[in-house]
């Protein structure tokens, strides 16, 4: 697969257009927030693997940004979905 960098760029661009349309068309909902967070993870991991070039390095170095991305996106999801206690 010679043109894999072009493919990575195309996926990043398509997922960015998708995120923008969710906001622009005002169809963002609790369901779509989960989808958006999932696509954000995919985009981030593509950058980590193919642009930063960590796909071909030892796991101990690749895992740090991947863990960072996973933790941040999970906690953003927790902050969004966790029920908010009613104010007194």
């Amino acid at each position, binding site marked *: 697969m010679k043109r894999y*960098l*072009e493919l*990575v*760029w195309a996926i*990043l*661009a398509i997922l*960015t*257009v998708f*995120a*923008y349309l*969710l*906001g*622009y068309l005002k169809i*963002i909902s609790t369901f779509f*927030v989960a989808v*958006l*967070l999932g696509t*954000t993870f995919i*985009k*981030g991991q593509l*950058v*980590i693997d*193919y*642009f*930063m*070039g*960590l796909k*071909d*390095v*030892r796991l101990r*170095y*690749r895992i*740090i*940004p991947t863990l*960072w*991305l996973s*933790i*941040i*996106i999970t*906690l*953003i999801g927790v*902050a*969004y979905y*966790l029920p*908010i206690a009613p104010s007194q």
Partner: protein
Amino acid sequence: MAKSTTLKEKYPPGDFAIWIIIYVELVTFGLLFLGYAFSRRADVAMFNESQLMLNQTSGFINTLILVTSSYFVIKAVKSITSMSEENGAEANAKASKWLLLAIGCGVAFGFVKGAEFYHIFGQGINLSTNKFFMFYIMLTAFHFMHVMLGSFVLFIIYKKTKTVGYTFGDYRGIETGASYWHMVDLLWIVLFPLVYIIR
């Protein structure tokens, strides 16, 4: 001997020190992202209302600009790292063209962001307006500074390619600068949906 693509490299590309900086930057921005996400819970209505004042289109354009610039930068890196002992000048010339495109993207990002800030600050909004705008200004201005620094780093690398400064087996400098640039892209990839889209 051709290098096998199945073998894992020992270390990440570039100078190891840049990776320490990258990890520290990721943690710093990560805390700010979480600060935003959890502060939003205290007043969701205010955050949603304030977010409507942002221009999602400029955030979208800047995302496209950054992912495209990252593509240009990796193409420049590949031009250099795949050079042979015979085609050094050609590889440097090729890389300089990709880098120029990437620097152009950095400048374009600056213009879009500048227009966005002009619009926001023109409405009298500042760090004290509310918690949403405090995070918005802090995150985007801090990130903007990284884009400017990254563009400057790319320009230094570009100058070096113009003098055929990268030779066969000596390309750590371009990999170091590129790694920093991709980090700037990675941060924006999380920042854009978090601040501009999720509501």
